[in-house]
């Protein structure tokens, strides 16, 4: 890797020093402004250039929806991830190219181990998501494979083949593990877990997985399973798998970002802390919760849109404006989910409703 700023980002992720974030963020912005003519035009429209910016908070954030149309890479990507798209298959998928996958993987491994393996465990990983062979453009599949290769002990494997979950195989493996007293880490999408939980609830099997077992789930349901509240999911994980709630860590990530966010619960437990559950922001990321109308930062507890400033996005755009709703809590935030399309009111008509009817 020859880009000095990228090297500095890598070093910062490996050894973060708080006072460096702001300076590095402005450096990354200047780099992206220069390297990416599309982003440059985006900034120029707003009258913002590296010369006018004095704080990372002023860096123009690109809406996630723009990833559907714009090429935002600062160099030829080593890897391009695509968003999964919604139920409307005709909708264009978002694209995010990563010119330096090492930055992505370093952010991922540093953050994952801090929140899922803070005790240094190297458990067997049972994955409820497609492998990269099945879904080569999925950032989640890539992420889980990198984690499996780096930290998974022998027998770490996928339980999704040809897009169907191998529930009998998973249940059999869980039964064997239960008898052997060897902690495991279950990882996967929330809707895949709901399918497994529903089978267990209907057919009766439940497990007392060995102490130290843990679980990471991610994503919404998008109509692919019944909707289950977080509280209910945590209760079911405990009931069916015997994994205590603190050992169940929700991950929030998106194709448009090089970094992810995890619940604080397991790392707090290992450090002997007790705080409410929230999403912890890694040191190389900043998150602002803004009023969707004015984009002004909201006080603690108020629900608004999340805008992330992620140094791991140094190869594209570091500032990303999401459509995700959340609120500030403790040193991080809690996520409430994707803002729905505007609800239609009265006798006028919204696009979404019309398109549903057509």
């Amino acid at each position, binding site marked *: 890797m020859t880009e000095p700023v990228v090297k500095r980002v890598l070093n910062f992720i490996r050894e973060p020093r708080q006072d460096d974030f702001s300076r590095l963020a402005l450096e990354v912005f200047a780099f992206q402004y220069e390297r990416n003519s599309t982003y440059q035009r985006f900034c120029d429209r707003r009258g913002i250039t590296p010369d006018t910016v004095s704080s990372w908070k002023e860096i123009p954030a690109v809406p996630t929806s723009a990833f559907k149309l714009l090429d935002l890479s600062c160099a030829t990507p080593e890897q391009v991830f695509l968003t999964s798209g919604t139920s409307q298959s005709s909708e264009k998928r978002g694209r995010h190219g990563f010119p330096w996958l090492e930055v992505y993987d370093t952010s991922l491994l540093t953050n994952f181990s801090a929140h899922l393996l803070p005790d240094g465990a190297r458990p067997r990983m049972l994955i409820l998501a497609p492998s990269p062979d099945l879904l080569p453009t999925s950032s989640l599949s890539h992420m889980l494979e990198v984690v499996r290769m780096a930290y998974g002990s022998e027998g770490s494997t996928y339980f999704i083949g040809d897009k169907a979950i191998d529930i009998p195989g998973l249940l059999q493996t869980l039964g064997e593990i239960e008898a052997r007293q060897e902690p495991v880490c279950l990882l996967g999408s929330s809707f895949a877990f709901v399918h497994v939980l529903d089978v267990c609830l209907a057919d009766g099997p439940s497990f007392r997985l060995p102490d130290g077992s843990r679980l990471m789930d991610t994503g919404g349901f998008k109509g692919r399973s019944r909707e289950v509240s977080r509280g209910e999911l945590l209760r079911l994980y405990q009931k069916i798998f015997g994994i205590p709630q603190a050992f169940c860590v929700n991950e929030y990530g998106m194709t448009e970002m090089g970094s992810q966010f995890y619940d604080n619960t397991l790392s707090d437990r290992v450090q002997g802390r007790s705080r409410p559950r929230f999403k912890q922001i890694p040191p190389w990321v900043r998150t602002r919760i803004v009023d969707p109308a004015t984009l002004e930062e909201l006080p603690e507890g108020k629900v608004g849109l999340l805008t992330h400033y992620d140094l791991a996005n140094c190869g594209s755009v570091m500032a990303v404006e999401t459509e995700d709703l959340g609120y500030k809590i403790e040193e991080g935030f809690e996520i409430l989910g994707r803002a729905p399309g505007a609800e239609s*009111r009265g006798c*006028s008509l*919204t696009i979404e409703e019309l398109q549903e009817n057509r």
Partner: protein
Amino acid sequence: MRVAAYHLPTKVSGFEVETRSYGEVTLDLVVVTPGLLAELIGHLEVARERIAKRKGREIAEILSDVFTRWQERTDPFRQAAEVALPAITRYSQAMVVHGLDLLLQGYTAEAFDALCREVASEEVLEGFVPVGSHLGRAYSPSLTTHVLAGNIPGVGLPGLIAATILGSASLVKTASSDPLFVALWAASVAKRDPEIGEALCVLSWSGGRKDLEAVAFDRAEVVIAYGNEQTMRELRGRVRGRFFGHGHRLSFGVIGREVLSNAEEVAERTAYDASLFDQRGCLSPHLFYVEEGGEATPREFAGLLATAMERWAERLPPGSPTVEEAVAVRRFRAGYEAQELVGKEVALFTSRQGLDWTVIYEEDQTFTPSCLQRTVLVKPVTDLSEVGGLLDSWRPYLQAVGVAVAPERIEVLAAQLGEAGVGRICPVGRMQAPPLTWHQEGRTLLHDLLRWVDLEA
């Protein structure tokens, strides 16, 4: 301020009231139960017998007089509406005042007179008269139930007026987004004429309460409802009487090349239509087709429209959007900005402040509904005769078209638009002020409420 957001016949025996607060404004709302509704309907049916004996024209004069009183800024009902509606509906104060004036302007004595003329003769309501080769008599509904929307103050008022003029009692379910305005109106009618007031009942309950709606629909000869398409389908299936549904509709505009010599003035009127009521109405235009070959190009017109939108945002400030509405505008803008950045023939104009308004010029002619909140698209056509063909897949949803063309073109254009499925054609700048007698969803207001009985000797 605390105000009653209901109107009940005076004889009702007992009911519970709960409050709902909107900042400084607190509304009293009746806790509606099936038993209370059944009792109210009993009272309404008795009151109906009295007003059915009165002449429609006389009732119309009284209602017209009520509206005259509302036009005075000192009228207590009007004052209550001006104070409470901004808090309840999220419209700015200036918009509420302007909107009320606009609404009330339409309810003149002449408008009521024209409405009464819809029914050829009052004799048909009083006895059997010759109709064609036999005798016929028209009966008004004994009870009309109205399910209202709350997007714009006064939506649904014409149906309520029509039922009252015909001597029908009305049970009104207001929308949770505005439980107040129609309740205030009914109270003002009752104050002017207590006997008519006894035949009106205005309440609010949350939509989908099947236990309440079963009672409200059971004895209603006619149900008039506003809401989204799904609600219409759902309600239609549960109504035993006649059902008039006003589902979602959308409106747009067309601008001829010859008026672009005066483009700034046309843009001003166009911007007014799109700014009024923050585009929440079914008469709010989503987009404008602008003809090429005039003194201003369609793209230049979009720029003038943007300037005019900014002026209207100063005069009639937008209300505060919900999170969902704000996200919808952001998503809409982001999509078009991205297209502009990749070099598509698109131009995005946005308000100086926040999400006040958005104008998008797009070369692609596809009829595209806007995300609302004062978001308008401008699209070019080489000739206005192309517009009809662009509407095809939206035909069932089309409502009004605001038109700016030379007078000699209007007849041909109107015929094309009418054929394409639109329901109302009017000059730009007047889209939100239809006459009382306009045929919403192609129907007449009074006439369609009547039930005819034929007597063959």
